[in-house]
């Protein structure tokens, strides 16, 4: 039988059986509208509020009411930034980084086009941010600072505790954190932090696609994004997606009680170490100090080979990974993240992201390691470049 190994957990994850079981009744007999006054509705209201507690608990939010359900991480990010700007029309400056997810990056590019001034913070070759540069970028008219917690491509972590303090101390800016790639992978503690807004997405940690949340610090005045009924205390209109909200709650509880993170880390380390040791043209993208990265992500470039070719060979063998190099007729869009890190073109072209999850086993990692040197070897042999062995 063909082996299937899923190593693309930063793209999306499998819905956990526990999560599916929790949401199933809401796809059949539990169909009420949480806004309804009758028993059906009240029961739904209770379920939604229970889920809110589960999410608040995972994030260590001070108050359950600080969480608002959304449809996805991108909605949360968009709402956070636009909601702040709408309330602060006098402040026209935004600070963010060059390596944000498109939900923030492309939004900020649009803001730039519509007259906002955006400061794009650079990262170094390991993908790390210079907090001093961030401090220097802050201005009296800075409305919002938006920084991700964990990078989706490299897994590099930004020091949001430290950044939050700097933002608070040196500006009146609101601090938004895109936490989509971090939740469920590392512990989050918002209570003592200076984070004002925090976005998360359910499908990145075993809830289904179609649900996210935004943490809005108590007392923060955020303009609503969706206007309509008074759902979510007037902050986000639209009938609550109860089955998905229940699933998100269940996924948060599951993540909170998960004790396999060390196993994931161990397997990632094993995969990464072996690839870098066995394959001569392999180089790591991202912080060499693994404490500065998510425990599940290894982004590795195979110099002088094309990422798509590596991906296709692995796919043929049943292994799912992703590449930072997307090839199409219009352009060869090499990853903006790797470009910001000054990864040489010949390496960025062959970048592969391995992202592990709770269902990966040691046997799967061994299987990948048994295939990869041969695949890379064959492609490197085909390459007209001289490759140092």
């Amino acid at each position: 039988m063909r082996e299937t190994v899923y190593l693309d957990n930063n793209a999306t994850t499998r819905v956990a059986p526990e999560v599916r079981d929790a949401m199933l009744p809401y796809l059949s007999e539990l169909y009420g509208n949480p806004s309804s006054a009758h028993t059906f509705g009240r029961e739904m209201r209770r379920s939604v509020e229970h889920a809110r507690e589960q999410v608040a608990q995972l994030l260590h939010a001070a108050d359950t009411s600080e969480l608002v359900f959304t449809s996805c991480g991108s909605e949360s990010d968009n709402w956070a930034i636009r909601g702040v700007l709408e309330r602060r029309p006098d402040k026209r400056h935004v600070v963010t980084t060059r390596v944000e997810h498109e939900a923030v990056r492309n939004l900020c590019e649009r803001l730039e086009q519509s007259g906002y001034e955006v400061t794009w913070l650079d990262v170094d070759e390991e993908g790390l941010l210079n907090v001093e540069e961030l401090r220097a970028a802050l201005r009296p008219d800075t409305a919002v600072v938006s920084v991700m917690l964990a990078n989706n491509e490299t897994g590099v972590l930004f020091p949001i505790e430290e950044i939050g303090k700097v933002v608070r101390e040196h500006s009146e800016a609101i601090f938004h954190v895109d936490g989509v790639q971090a939740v469920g992978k590392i512990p989050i503690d918002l209570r003592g932090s200076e984070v004002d807004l925090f976005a998360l997405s359910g499908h990145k940690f075993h809830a289904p696609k179609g649900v996210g949340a935004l943490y809005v610090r108590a007392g923060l005045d955020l303009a609503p994004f969706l206007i309509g009924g008074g759902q979510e205390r007037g902050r986000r209109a639209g009938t609550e997606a109860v089955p998905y909200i229940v699933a998100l709650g269940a996924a948060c509880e599951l993540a909170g009680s998960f004790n396999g993170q060390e196993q994931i880390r161990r397997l990632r380390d094993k995969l990464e170490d072996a690839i870098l040791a066995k394959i001569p043209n392999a180089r790591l993208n991202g912080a060499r100090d693994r404490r500065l990265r998510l425990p599940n992500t290894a982004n590795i470039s195979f110099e002088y080979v094309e990422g798509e070719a590596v991906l296709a060979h692995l796919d043929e063998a049943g292994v799912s990974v992703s590449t930072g190099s997307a090839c199409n007729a219009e352009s060869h869009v090499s990853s903006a993240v790797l470009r910001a890190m000054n990864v040489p073109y010949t390496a960025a072209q062959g970048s592969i992201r391995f992202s592990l999850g709770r269902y990966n086993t040691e046997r799967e990692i061994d299987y990948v390691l048994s295939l990869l040197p041969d695949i890379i070897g064959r492609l490197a042999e085909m390459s007209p470049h001289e490759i140092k062995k």
Partner: protein
Amino acid sequence: MSYYPGRINEHFLNPRNVGEVRAEAKAVIGEAGSLACGAILRLSLEIDAERQSIADAKFKAVGCGYLVASASVLTETIKDVAVSKAAQLSESAIMDWFEEWPTERAHCAALCHEALLAALANYHQAAREEWAGDEALICTCFGVSEKRIEQAVRERSLQTVAEVTRACHAGGGCQSCHPLIVDILEDYWRTVEAESAGAES
């Protein structure tokens, strides 16, 4: 379901003719690359100068499966094919062979065609540069001199450009020398007529 469509996937997984032509052969190299998509292709051809045909074709590439598959099929297609015929290979020939080539990847196959034309141009360039003879070079594509064409015309009583091309390859490439070949034919036959008229009188 495979990553690439059927035959493309098959050639991607098992590419034919990867590498360089044998070391003893004077390799004719043709390279093409795309800054837009980062692909690089290096064709290496062994050309049989006597037969004016491609004795062997190999490739090396950095690129996606479409590039690898098209290079694989291109090298298969042009082996044992006359240089003049290879030069006439259409840009879409390789894509047509695969039958299910996505249009958004047409540039991958085009890159192969470009490398082939570059190799043949290099071959003709080298033929011109190596030309050490005193007599005028008429067909630069195949390095055929005026003297050799005249000899062929005389020995075989050739009448047309097509016959000249068949006899000594001259005029089989870019065809820019056809008027010159016509001149040579006309000169020869005028001389023959004059001589025979002189013999009669």
